[in-house]
C-alpha cells in the first residue's frame, strides 16, 4: 500500500496517540452498547486499511475467544444479586452474564485495533518511535530480524546436505533423531558465531561505537498531523471529562443498572466513535483526490 496516502501518511507519533487512546477507551468505557459501536467503528477502520483481509485471518481465533469468555464468566463468577437459574447447584447471575458480554466486547475492540496497528505501524515507523527511547535496543531488533531468515535458510541447506551423511531428523529412533538434531543445531550455531565475528568487524569498520548514534528513519510532522493530533486530543479530553462525571460505563455489580443510554452516555458514545473514525477523514479526503485525478484522464 502507498505509504504517503490517507491514514498511512500520518506521522507515527499521531498514530501512536490514536492507538493509545483507542486501547485505553476500549477498556475504560465499560458499557456493552458503547463497546459494540466502537467495535463496529474499528472494523470499518480495518476495512479501509486492507479490505478486511488481515481481520478475516484473525476472525476465527478472536471469535472463539469471545465465545469462550461469554460462557466462562458466568460459570466462574457468581457475583450479582439477580440469579437467572441454577446449573446444577451453580447459580448463574444476570450480572456475571452481562459482565462477560461487556468484557468480550472490550477484548474484541482491542484485538481489532491491534490488527490495524499491525498493518499501519510498519517496522520502519516502529523503529522511528523506538530508536529515540533506546537506539541500542532498536539496532538489536533490526539485527535480529536480519539474522533469523539467514539462520533458517542455512538450516535448510545444512539439513539437505547432512542427509547424505545419514544425519537427519526424519529417520531413525527418537534418541538418534534427537542426537542428530542437536548436532545440526550445534553446527549451525558455531557457524553463526564464526560469521558474527565478521559482522562485528564490519560494524566496527564503519565506526560503530565511536560516539553517540543518530537514527536514519525520518518522518516529517505535517499540517495534517497537527490537525489530526489536535482532533484526537480534544476528543480524548471530552471523553475523559464525561467519563469522570460518571458517564459512559455500566454499573454491573452488585446489581445491574439500566442498560439504556443516558444523555451523557450518548455524548460519550458519539465522541468515542468520532475519535475512532477521525483518521479515516484523511483516507476519504485522499481517495477523493484520486477520483478527481481519474476523471480528468
Amino acid at each position: 500500500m502507498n505509504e504517503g496516502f490517507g491514514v498511512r501518511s500520518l506521522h507515527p507519533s499521531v498514530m501512536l496517540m490514536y492507538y493509545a487512546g483507542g486501547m485505553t477507551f476500549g477498556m475504560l468505557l465499560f458499557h456493552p452498547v458503547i463497546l459494540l459501536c466502537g467495535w463496529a467503528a474499528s472494523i470499518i477502520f480495518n476495512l479501509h486499511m486492507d479490505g478486511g483481509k488481515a481481520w478475516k485471518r484473525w476472525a476465527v481465533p478472536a471469535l472463539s475467544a469471545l465465545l469462550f469468555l461469554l460462557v466462562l464468566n458466568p460459570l466462574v463468577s457468581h457475583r450479582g444479586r439477580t440469579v437467572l437459574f441454577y446449573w446444577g447447584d451453580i447459580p448463574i447471575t444476570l450480572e456475571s452474564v452481562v459482565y462477560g458480554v461487556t468484557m468480550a466486547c472490550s477484548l474484541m475492540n482491542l484485538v481489532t485495533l491491534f490488527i490495524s496497528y499491525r498493518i499501519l505501524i510498519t517496522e520502519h515507523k516502529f523503529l522511528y518511535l523506538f530508536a529515540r527511547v533506546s537506539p541500542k535496543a532498536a539496532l538489536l531488533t533490526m539485527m535480529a530480524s536480519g539474522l533469523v531468515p539467514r539462520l533458517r535458510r542455512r538450516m535448510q541447506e545444512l539439513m539437505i546436505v547432512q542427509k547424505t551423511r545419514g544425519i537427519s531428523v526424519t529417520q531413525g529412533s527418537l534418541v538418534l533423531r534427537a542426537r542428530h538434531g542437536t548436532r545440526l543445531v550445534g553446527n549451525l550455531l558455531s557457524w553463526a558465531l564464526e560469521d558474527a565475528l565478521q559482522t562485528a568487524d564490519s560494524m566496527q569498520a564503519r565506526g560503530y561505537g565511536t560516539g553517540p548514534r543518530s537514527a536514519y528513519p525520518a518522518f516529517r510532522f505535517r499540517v495534517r498531523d497537527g490537525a489530526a493530533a489536535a482532533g484526537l486530543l480534544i476528543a480524548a479530553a471530552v471523553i475523559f471529562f464525561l467519563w469522570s462525571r460518571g458517564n459512559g460505563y455500566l454499573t454491573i455489580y452488585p446489581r445491574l443498572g439500566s442498560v439504556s443510554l443516558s444523555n451523557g452516555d450518548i455524548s460519550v458514545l458519539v465522541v468515542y466513535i468520532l475519535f475512532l473514525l477521525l483518521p479515516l477523514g484523511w483516507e476519504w479526503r485522499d481517495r477523493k483526490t484520486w477520483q478527481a485525478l481519474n476523471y480528468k484522464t
Partner: protein
Amino acid sequence: MASVELQNLTFHYPDLRTAALSNLSLSVRGGEFVVLAGPSGSGKSTLLRLLKREVSPGGRLSGSILLDGRPLEAWPAREAASAVGLVMQHPDNQLVVDSVEHELAFGMENFGMERSAMRRRMAEIAGFFGLEPLLSRRTDELSGGQKQTVNLASVLMLQPQLLLLDEPLAQLDPLAARDLLGMIKRLNDEWGITVIMSEHRIDDLLPLADRVVRLERGGLAFDGPPRGFAEEAWRRQEPSWVEALPAVTRWALSQPHSETIRDSGPPPLSVKEARQLLDRGHLAAESGSTRQSPSSAAARKPLLQADGVFFAYDKRSPAVMSGLEWTIRQGDRIALFGGNGSGKSTLLRLLAGLFPPQRGEVLLEGVKLKRLPEAERYTRIGYLAQNPLLHFAYDTLEEDLFQAARRAECPDPAAEVRRSAERFGLQRLLDRHPHDLSGGERQLGALAMALFGRPQLLLLDEPTKGVDAAAKTRLAAHLRTVHESGTTMVIATHDVEFSAAYANRCSLLFQGEIVADEEPETFFQGNLFYATPLHRLLNSLTSSPAEEADVR
C-alpha cells in the same frame, strides 16, 4: 586523497614465531589503484587489516604506518573510521541490518549525522551505484553480487579517502565480479579514491591497476607496474607467479617468437592488446591445444538419465527445471555452465536425489532414484555442495572422515582415513576443527568424505569458488585421479578456464533445459561469453572460409 606510507613494518601474531609481515616498506600515492597479490598466507589480509585500525589484529607491531603523513594511531577515532573503508570477502557476513536502505545508513548513524545530511548522501550514493530500486528490499533477498555492491556502497557512505578491499570478488560469479570491479575502477577514476585491493585471481585486475604489489611470506616480492609484473613473472617461470597472469599474456609470452613481443613493447594484458599484436604480425595465430576428442560419446553406457524433469520450489514461483532431458554417460567429465540463478545447483541436487522432481524421473542405470534406498543412493552418487562447510558435522576433520568411512562400511575405517588423508595431503590437518581449515582444505576434506563410498558419479557444485590458484591446481589433479579410477563427474561451474582444461563435455543450462551439450572445443568455439579469453582471441581470427569468400 590519501597517501599511505609503511616504514619497516613487522608484525607477529601472538604465539607465532614467524613474522606475518617482515620489514615491509611501501608507499602508495594518493589516488593510486594498487593490487595486492601473493599466495594464501602471504600476509595480504594482515596488511589490509593493519591499515584499518578498527579491525587490526592483536600482536606485536613494529615500524610505522603513516596515513596522509600522520601516524595511523594519532588519528581521532571517528576520522580514522571514516577515512579508511574496508570491504571484506564474504558478502553475507558484512551485512548488519535487515533492509538495504538501513544497511546503507548504518555507518552514517554511527557517526551521529543529521537526518537531512544522511538522506542527501543516501540519494547521491544510491544513485551512483544504481541501488535505488533495491532500497526497500530486504538484504537477505539479494544476490551475492548485489550484496557486495551494498557493502561497498555502505562503506562509501562515510566518504573514505582510502578504500581497502580484501578479496571482495572471491565469492562472486564472474559476471557479478566484473560489475563490481568496474564500479571500483570508476570510484578510483572519478572520485580519486586510493584503492588497495587483494585478490587471488589478479588476471582481470592487471589491466586496471596502476601498480602491483606482491607479497611472499610477509615480505615484498614485487612492487611495480602491471606490465613489469608480467615480465617479471615470465622471467621467473615459477608456477605461482605465472598462474597469476591473464591467460592471454601467458599465451602470448609462450609463443615461439615471444622475443619479438618483448622488443616491440610491453606484454599484452587483455584480449584487445593481444589482437593488436597479432594484427601487427608479431604473433602467429595458432591455437596451441588441439586436444584429442575422447572416444565417441554415444558409444558409452548411460549412467544417469534425467527424463522430462520438472521442478519448482513453490506452487507460485516459476519452474526452475522445465522438462529437462539429459544423459550422463559413464566416463564423462561434464562442465555444466549456466547463468546466475539458472538452476545449476538445483539440477545437481535433483540428480543427487536430495529432493524429488515434481514431474519426470531421474534414473541411475535405468533404476528410478526414488526406488533406491537413501543410503545406497547417497553412496553411489556423491554430492559436494558449493559451501564445503555444509558437509562437516564433527569437531575434528579426523572424526568427520572416520564417521564418513564408517558409514560407507569400510572394513577398517581408521586405516581408510589414514590412507585417504595421505592421498589428499591432509595428514597435518586431521586434528583441526573444520572451521579452522582454509577453503581449499575444506574442499579436499569434503571430497575425501564423498569418496569413501566409491561413488559411481560425483556431482560438484562450484568447487573452485573462493579457492586460490595453487589449491585449484591441486584440486584438478585430485579430480583427474578420481576420474581415472572410474568415477564419472559433473561439475557445475562459472570457471571457464578450469573446465576448458579439464572437462571432456560442456553443457549449458538455460531456462530449465540443457540447450548445448558438446565437446569442449566445439562448445567454446561458438561462444563469446562462455569462452576462455584465448578462445575469444582466436575465434575472431579464424573466421570461416565462407565469410572470407564473401569479403573477396
